[in-house]
């Protein structure tokens, strides 16, 4: 533990789950400070100064989002914590909520205070039911201690916090679908505008933030936005939880300071501990199933030859042609024995299953992509299928109601872009492709492949 840990410093202490242990380790100080010494706008100001960006995937500056909340009406305002965490490869919010639930409760109180919110919700994925009980227990304790309810800590500020389970759909993590679902409706994303900051839950101004985002707020208030902004690199300030999985020696959730080189993250013993069995690294999905997959030659260095860092900017360097995204921090490592076609098919199976079906390109296109990929993977593919697949993903991307369509299209596009030889091999050697995997192929070759 050589580096600064903002969220996970105390996470392995057994007493941290209960409110007494949490307070003993410095918990709830930010509530005292904000309510007793600060104005709501000053809290927002600190968050702006911190440069904190949303940890749900898009990386939108949190302070700026908060300043968009519509204050021109006397309607109630809502803060919703997005704990729907369902992206394949992403399992970081779960760690926080399970191990240190009071951090989220504390963050919710301070954030709600900043936004003038009187009722806040944590919307948690239904499969995390056991965590919901942990959170409920923490909320009950916070009520009992006077951190929640009428006149928090004797101030004029009152807050109610509820935790609400989702029905088991990935799409309910999209913020407007989450709002619909919380209202008791089918979780279909809404058409934007209006944006939730103006018309969200029950038509009232609403802010939706990810669990990890909210959990950063106590540190920012305790230590100051500038202190937070000093951590990290450039516009990627602070720390980020990365849930690492795949063919690595030490899968798990790591809190990293943004800016750590990808190479160090994969190979150092502090983090992933290298590729399992000393095999070669073949590919990386750095930010959850929705982001483009990278071939070996683009993982540790960018196309420009600079070291690739764990930051919003560096991971995206090169755009779609040679870059990817930090996304939600679901870091999936593939070794030389993994099949990119099979993995792409697996992801597409997920998107086909999870599309809400509201808009035609996504509803129909996700199913079509899955069927083509199934055929390719199982030795019945044709050469034309590769171009067809490329064309179908292109017809979806950018043409849908919500970003789910893009999330379904990007992994397919990137796999074809960087691993076309492997797709072709599946067509040319159908028998062999069902028996063994392709291996490294051209993934490690330094030359630039011709993109489609």
């Amino acid at each position, binding site marked *: 533990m050589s580096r600064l840990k903002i969220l996970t410093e105390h996470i392995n202490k057994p007493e941290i789950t209960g409110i007494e242990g949490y307070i003993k380790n410095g918990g709830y100080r930010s509530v005292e400070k904000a309510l007793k010494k600060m104005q709501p706008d000053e809290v927002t100001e600190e968050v702006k100064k911190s440069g904190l960006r949303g940890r749900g995937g898009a990386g939108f500056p949190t302070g700026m989002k908060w300043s968009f909340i519509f204050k021109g009406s006397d309607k109630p305002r809502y803060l919703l914590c997005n704990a729907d965490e369902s992206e394949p490869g992403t399992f970081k919010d779960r760690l926080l909520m399970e191990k240190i639930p009071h951090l989220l409760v504390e963050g919710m109180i301070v954030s709600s205070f900043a936004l003038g919110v009187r009722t806040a919700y944590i919307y948690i994925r239904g499969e995390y039911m056991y965590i919901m009980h942990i959170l409920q227990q923490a909320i009950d304790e916070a009520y009992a201690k006077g951190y929640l309810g009428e006149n928090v800590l004797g101030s004029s500020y009152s807050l109610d916090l509820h935790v609400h389970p989702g029905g088991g*759909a990935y*799409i309910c993590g999209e913020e407007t679908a989450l709002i619909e679902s919380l209202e008791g409706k*089918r979780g279909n994303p809404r*058409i934007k505008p*209006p944006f939730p900051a103006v018309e969200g839950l029950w038509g009232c101004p609403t802010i939706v933030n990810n669990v990890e985002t909210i959990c950063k707020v106590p540190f920012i208030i305790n230590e100051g936005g500038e202190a937070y902004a000093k951590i990290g690199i450039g516009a990627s300030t602070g720390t980020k939880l990365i849930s690492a999985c795949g063919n690595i020696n030490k899968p798990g959730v790591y809190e990293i300071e943004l800016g750590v080189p990808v190479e160090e993250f994969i190979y150092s013993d502090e983090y992933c501990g290298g590729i399992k069995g000393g095999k070669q690294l073949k590919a990386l999905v750095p930010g959850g199933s929705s982001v483009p997959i990278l071939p070996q030659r683009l993982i540790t260095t960018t196309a420009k030859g600079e070291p690739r860092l764990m930051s919003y900017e560096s991971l995206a360097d090169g755009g779609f042609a040679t870059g990817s995204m930090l996304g939600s921090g679901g870091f999936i490592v593939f070794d030389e024995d993994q099949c990119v076609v099979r993995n792409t098919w697996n992801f597409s199976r997920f998107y*086909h*299953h*999870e*599309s*809400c*079906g*509201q*808009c*035609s*390109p996504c*509803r*129909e*296109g*996700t*199913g*079509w992509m899955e*069927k083509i990929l199934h055929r390719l993977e199982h030795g019945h593919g044709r050469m034309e299928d590769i171009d*067809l697949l490329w*064309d179908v993903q*292109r*017809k979806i991307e*950018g*043409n*849908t*109601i919500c970003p789910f369509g893009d999330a379904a299209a990007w992994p397919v596009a990137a796999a074809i872009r960087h691993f076309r030889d492997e797709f072709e091999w599946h067509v040319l050697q159908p028998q062999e492709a069902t028996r063994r995997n392709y291996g490294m192929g051209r993934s490690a070759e330094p030359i630039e492949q011709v993109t489609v």
Partner: protein
Amino acid sequence: MPKVTIDNITIDVAPGTTILNAARMIGENVPPAMCYYSKLKGSGGKCRVCLVKVTKSSEQNPRGMPKLVASCCTQIADGMVVENVTSPEVIEARKGVVELLLINHPLDCPVCDQAGECHLQDLSYEHGAATTRYDFGRRTFDKIDIGPYIQLHMTRCILCYRCVYVADQLTNERRHGIINRGDAAEISTYIQNVIDNDFSGNVIDVCPVGALTDKTFRFKSRVWFTKPMNAHRNCDKCSGKVTLWFQGEEVLRVTGRKDNYGEVDEFICNTCRFETKQKSDWVIEGPRRIDTHSVIAQNHLPYELDVVHPQIEAAQ
């Protein structure tokens, strides 16, 4: 009033007007609409066939929009410049959406009562390729009778949600909705349930395809062999203004009066639609003018079209 330019034609429209409605006011090169229905609040945004390209967002913001936008739910801004048929990108994307709408469609037009007045048919004719690249099995459902008058043939549904909005906005109790997700989503009463309401028959008129059809008209004739006449009667439930579809002296079908975008002027009640099918029930006003681009116009004299002024909903 704000100015908007669509395919090089500039028009002044009220603030809050959508691009689609501005295009309808211009009357040329109007983007197609499979899910938007001006009389149904909240409709639109789903089918994505109305996509257009905004090359200039407004007078203040000369940049275009990064993605194509759904014209039915994007409001104009002063100085906005939009490309519809003048943009090859739009035409290609629209072609793509039509292809996707068709991959699970049964294309059973020869036995479909909607044939001839089906928007998907018109759209495929204009944008579709003659062949399909989809060679997997298509999604199918059993036909369901929802009450004595309406049949649901889910296999043909394009999930435009119009019938759901009709039930929400016209009837006092919605009995059907959408269940399941993705391409398994379906219009359903969940437990086979009768949709029984004075205005339920309007789901047939708003359905852009042959998913909801009139059982009293089923297989009686092809629509292009029937002759439409405007007619009215005194009705205590609705305006009583309808279109009667005749074969000889026999009224085969009663529908609302549809404009050139396939939208009814006024919703009608089930008594007018299903239970008053004698010619003597009605005061005949004269022949109904049919949009000449539609297949059903083929057997009729070309009439001049009624010019329709779309109702523009105020900015939300």
